[in-house]
Every structure is written in structure tokens, then in C-alpha cells.
């Protein structure tokens, strides 16, 4: 995103809207720090500029920069993936896809959220470890397409410095891998220059309890009181 210096009247109305604080005051006018900006479009859509000074320049649509808006503006589609936003299916339709069965877990690492954004270089610090552990990063996810094909967990170098508002890594593992996966990955997160919201997909037991909560507590991991619950209305129902 960019602000036309000749048009900006310096009213400051756009400044609070930026989720990553990349609009700064510059000699009585506002200016976008384009290296920090994630091209989310919030400042433009807010429609608050009295001088119509805010615009998305052509360079923002060119690769590798174009991935910024694809991951940061939910109204922009991922071109190769035909989905919007972070593009994960996770457990939303698990009652008809059976993607996660009993004794299987999905881990969702959402980098940059809330409100900090992330460079892909920060995410790579985790993807390389995941690959070294032999875990599979799920392919139906837009971040997957930015990785090198050699399965090293590295991103293609041109993307490394790109900054996005948030991106989700999603992978699946079995009961016997739960402790090792979380035990290795969670401590890694504290050294990142971003925040990571962590989600875990699990099946309900027949008595509507969630057995993994007790296992997580033993590992020192607390579960938030609110969750996302697939209530089993999808048909045909898959219960594996």
C-alpha cells in the first residue's frame, strides 16, 4: 500500500486502522513503511481518507510481493489454491470428510496472529524442524505451495522476507506422536519474532468428553475454555 504524498493532508485518520502499525507520520504527512506493510487493504477499505491519498500500487500485485495480500486480505483469492484467507479446511467438515479419526490429531500453528504479522523466515524456523521430525505438513494449505519441493521445509528464497498478516501451518499425527510433537514444537515458538496461536483438532469420545485435554494438562499445556465444535450435522456422516 502507498500514500500519495502530494495528496495527503496529514489528518492522521488512517493511522489507527493499520493492524501492523506500518503507517507512520513523516513530516506532517502520513507514509506507509512498505517493508512492514502486509497489503491487507484495511486502510483503503476503511474509506476514511478525505484526500483519497491511499492506493495499492502495481508492484504489490507482482511476485513475490503478491503473496502479502493473498495471505493478509481475506477478499483476495490464492491463485493456485482457489481459496481465500489462510485457506485451511481443518475440522470444519470432519464429520463428512473423516480427515481426522479417533486417535489422530491435527495441529494448527497460526503465525502472526493476533496483530503482529510475520515474515516467512520466522515460519521457516518451524517448518524445517517439522520436516526433520518426519511429520507431514498438510498439502491442502496455501503455505505448502511456497515451500521448496525438496521436502527440506525451506521456503523458496524469494518468499523468505515477505511479510504476511497471518499464515497457518497444519499437520496431522497419531496418538503416539502427540507428546513428542508438542514437546518439540511448542518450546521453539518462544524464540520467534512473532506470535503463534495454537490449535489442536481432536475427536470427541462417545460420552462427549475430550480425552486429550487431560493428556495436555500432564504436559503443562492448558486448553482455553472456548473451542470450535463440529456438532455432527454433516451428511453422509463419517465416524472413523
Amino acid at each position, binding site marked *: 500500500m502507498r500514500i500519495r504524498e502530494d495528496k495527503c493532508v496529514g489528518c492522521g485518520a488512517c493511522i*489507527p*486502522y493499520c*493492524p501492523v*502499525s506500518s503507517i507512520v507520520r513523516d513530516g506532517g504527512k502520513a507514509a506507509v513503511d512498505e517493508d512492514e506493510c502486509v497489503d*491487507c487493504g*484495511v486502510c483503503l*477499505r476503511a474509506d476514511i481518507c478525505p484526500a483519497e491519498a491511499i492506493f495499492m500500487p502495481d508492484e504489490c500485485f507482482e511476485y513475490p510481493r503478491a503473496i502479502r495480500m493473498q495471505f*493478509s486480505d*481475506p*477478499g483476495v483469492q490464492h491463485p493456485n489454491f482457489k481459496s481465500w*484467507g*489462510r485457506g*485451511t*479446511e*481443518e*475440522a*470444519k*467438515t*470432519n*464429520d*463428512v470428510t473423516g480427515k481426522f479419526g479417533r486417535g489422530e490429531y491435527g495441529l*494448527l500453528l*497460526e503465525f502472526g*496472529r*493476533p*496483530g*503482529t*504479522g510475520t515474515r516467512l523466515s520466522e515460519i521457516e524456523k518451524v517448518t524445517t524442524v517439522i520436516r526433520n521430525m518426519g511429520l507431514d505438513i498438510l498439502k491442502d494449505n496455501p503455505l505448502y505451495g511456497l515451500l521448496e519441493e525438496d521436502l527440506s521445509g525451506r521456503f523458496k528464497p524469494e518468499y523468505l522476507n515477505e511479510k504476511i*498478516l*497471518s499464515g*497457518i501451518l497444519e499437520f496431522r499425527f497419531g496418538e503416539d506422536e502427540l507428546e513428542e510433537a508438542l514437546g518439540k514444537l511448542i518450546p521453539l515458538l518462544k524464540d*520467534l519474532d512473532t*506470535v503463534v*496461536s*495454537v*490449535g*489442536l*483438532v*481432536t475427536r*470427541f469420545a462417545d460420552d*462427549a468428553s*475430550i480425552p486429550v*485435554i487431560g493428556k495436555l494438562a500432564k504436559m503443562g*499445556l*492448558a*486448553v*482455553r*475454555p*472456548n*473451542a*470450535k*465444535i*463440529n*456438532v*455432527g*450435522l*454433516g*451428511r*453422509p*456422516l463419517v465416524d472413523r
Partner: protein
Amino acid sequence: MSHSLHRYGPVESLRGDYCIYARAAKGVNRGEGVGDKLRKILAIYTSSGVVNFGSSHGGKSFSNGLEAEEYAKTLDDSYGIIATFDDRESVKKVLTKAGEANTGISIVVSGLIDEVVKVAHECGLKPHTATLSLGIFGHTEKLPEDDVLEMVTMCGHSLVSTGLIKDVIAKVKAGKLSPEDAALIASKPCTCGIFNTSRCAKKFREILERESERAD
């Protein structure tokens, strides 16, 4: 969209915060007729005390002027719709009606685990899968204070900024905005319509009360 998962805040505040998402699955039930099924679900939402809904593709939410009829026309190109509610009774109404409508589309409710499981049982449903939130890790010093975090995490795409929430809180405290108008302004960047304007206005009223108690 794991975007309604990591909503932050104490249990009491979360009691007034639910999102319901209906989503057709690729290769299963996303074919012809999905638009009509989603329109049915939209009608269920709007007749059950909905607080907000929206369309990130259309760039607008109900709280900022998206009409249900206008939105309904776009649903042939869609595969899911999400809406926000501020009490468990509305959730119960939606799940009861969705069960009767028998669309076969998956329904996901974000909210307090205990409450959602109870409501599901009251509606004769058996919860299938949960996506749990383990919280926020990493460089958490970058996060804003709890009151603000509660509000910004109501937009799961992180489009509602800390700066905007602080700006409207300052205007509410200065008497320049009512809590309700401030909540509408805060909700505007969240085009998916999962920003709960009712919970937000309540929070702003609480902040005002705290301020006046302090002044006393």
C-alpha cells in the same frame, strides 16, 4: 477459517459470544444446490437473533450495512456462511432449525466448550470433532493489554487493529462516541462478520463504568 477459534477473554465475557459456521465440503456436498442450502441456513440465522454476519469477498458485514437479501443472492458462488450470536438460546434455536432443515452441510459452533456441548445435547446432537485453542505463544510481549486483546481477537483475520480499538475506547471515554457506535466502527474492518458488536459494546460500557468508579 480457523478464524473464530482464538477468541480471547474471561469465561463471563465468552458467555455472550458464539459463532456458527455452515460449510460444504469439497468432493462431498459442495455441488449443485449448495446455494439454496446456504440460503436456508442464512434464513435460520436471521430468524434466530443474529448479531452479525458478513462476506469477506463482498467486503461488507451486516453490522456495516450488508442486507440479508443482498447477501443471499451471492451464495451460489459460496461454500460456507458464518454468523455471530450473543447468547446460548440463539445457538439452540439455530441448531434445532438446522437439524430440521437437514441440509447435510457441516455445522461448527465456536464458543464455550461446556455450553456448546450442552446445547448440542439439548438439540439431540452428538458433537463430532473439536478444534481446541491452546492459546498464544511466541513473542507475546507484542500483544496488547487484555481488554484490547479481547476485542482484536474477535476478527480472526487480525484486521481489527489495536490502534483502532484504543482510538475508539478513548473516544468513548471522552464522550465523543457511544459504546454502541464505537462497536460498529471497531467492527468495520472485519468483513466476515464474526466481530461481535454486542459483546464489544458491553465491554466498552464496562470500561466506562470502571472509569467512573475510579473517578468516584
